């Protein structure tokens, strides 16, 4: 059974262990009085909340730019979109869609600048992306204080200026996707239909994009830039496109996240947001230079299941709150595993 062995090696032991761990969590849950149905509600909520951010990583991985630790660049664009939409007093669907519309131009502009930079530093993308992300988050922290926002729901009451650390979306577009066509089964289970549909829509669109001429070229650039070049494709342009796309989806991703979470978190909150997304993608089976829609779905689901279930299940088993440590070990262990694996491009 060499093929099975090969499949296991390809998939990697860490993933199999994580997968078994998740299965064990779900099986074990009823025994420690954790309700499975409400757990599933949480898992689906968090899945939808995070899936788009994970999806945002795919184009750059496919184009060979590595894991986008600079995801905060897109997140900042999304934050600009949502805060501006609130400032303009947009509520409900107009608010959510308005936020997306307002975020897009920023995302495209940021993406261009960011992609241009990454094209200049081939080979060092990941470290630089990380620090570009940190820089833009801290730089924007200044702007959140200085920009002339005036909506009383957003600015500090006592100073009259400067945005609050967390801004509630209550009364704007909080949970607008989650509650759209939401399905209620029993007392404890609720399926966030609208949000899941939105995620599916974006995933399908991304799938289509990867099957287009440009998407094909992008994948080829990631797989073998020399081949793509010999085929008349400009690697730099494809990489730039992938970065812009990643940034734009990142912006949309944070908007989906916010509406589900119910709050806009600014200042230092986006600083480390790329890491869980990266971990989720890798847990789903992606490598540093190959990722598919399936990786996104599976990875997000597994990772969010762990985050949902460990605090309740593990804590009641161990009588101590070890979920944080487990989260750190699993997510970073997964990234570490992917980084230290021989790059699978055969040369």
């Amino acid at each position, binding site marked *: 059974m060499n093929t099975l062995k090969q499949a296991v090696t390809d998939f990697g032991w860490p993933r199999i262990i994580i997968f078994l761990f998740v299965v064990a969590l779900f099986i074990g849950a009823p025994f420690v009085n954790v309700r499975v149905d409400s757990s599933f509600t949480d898992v689906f909520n968090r899945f939808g909340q995070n899936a788009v951010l994970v999806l945002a990583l795919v184009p750059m991985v496919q184009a060979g730019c590595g894991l986008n630790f600079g995801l905060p660049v897109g997140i900042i664009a999304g934050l600009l979109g949502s805060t501006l939409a609130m400032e303009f007093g947009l509520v409900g669907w107009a608010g959510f869609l308005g936020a997306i519309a307002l975020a897009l131009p920023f995302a495209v502009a940021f993406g261009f600048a960011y992609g241009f930079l990454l094209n200049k530093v081939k080979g060092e993308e990941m470290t630089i992306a990380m620090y570009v992300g940190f820089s833009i988050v801290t730089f924007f922290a200044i702007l959140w204080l200085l920009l002339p926002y005036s909506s009383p729901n957003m600015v500090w009451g006592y100073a009259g200026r400067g945005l609050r650390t967390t801004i509630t979306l209550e009364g704007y577009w909080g949970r607008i996707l989650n509650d759209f066509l939401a399905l209620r089964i029993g007392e404890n289970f609720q399926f966030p239909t609208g949000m899941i549909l939105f995620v599916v829509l974006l995933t399908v669109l991304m799938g289509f994009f990867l099957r287009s001429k440009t998407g094909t070229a992008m994948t080829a650039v990631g797989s073998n830039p020399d081949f793509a070049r010999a085929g008349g494709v400009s690697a730099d342009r494809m990489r730039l496109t992938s970065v812009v796309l990643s940034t734009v989806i990142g912006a949309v991703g944070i908007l989906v996240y916010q509406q589900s979470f119910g709050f806009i978190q600014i200042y230092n909150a986006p600083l480390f947001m790329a890491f869980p997304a990266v971990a989720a993608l890798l847990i789903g089976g992606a490598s540093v230079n190959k990722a598919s829609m399936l990786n996104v779905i599976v990875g997000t689901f597994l990772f969010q299941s762990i985050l949902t279930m460990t605090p309740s299940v593990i804590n009641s*088993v*161990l*009588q*101590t709150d070890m979920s944080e440590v487990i989260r750190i070990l699993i997510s970073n262990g997964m990234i570490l595993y992917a980084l230290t694996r021989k790059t699978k491009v055969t040369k």
Partner: protein
Amino acid sequence: MSKLDPKTARRLTVRAALGVLYFVVAVILFLTGRGHTILVDNKADPAGSYPALKGAVVSIGRAKPMEFYPGDRDKFIVKGQRHVLRVKPLAPGAQERTVEFRVPLGEDMTLVSISKLMAGVEPWYETFTAPTAQERAAERAAADAENPVETFGSFGP
């Protein structure tokens, strides 16, 4: 293989010696750096067998001397185990007394009673244990034992 050439032998010796030295230094640092809290009090015996001193200047080693009046209690933090305790009563003409004593290595706090010392009551020093978190934890453990919960291995209090 079986026979070492002189150079290798010399290096092995040097390295072994250094390894030993590493531990020796660690032990010396431990012994000389071990901190002890010495509580000094000047209290009369509630039963009246010895009185408190009217006033005294106490010093331990090279630490800054402190004045003690009846009922006072204060602490010295000292390094190492051997210490010289000097008690100089304020009463004119009273004789100064210097004693050498040794704090056990494992002891964190020692209570020295200068009134006992001056009155010649033995033992004038004793181990002092404040009620600690550990004890509180022990109490809680006792409580937990009544309604046991699953614990993970040796985890838990």
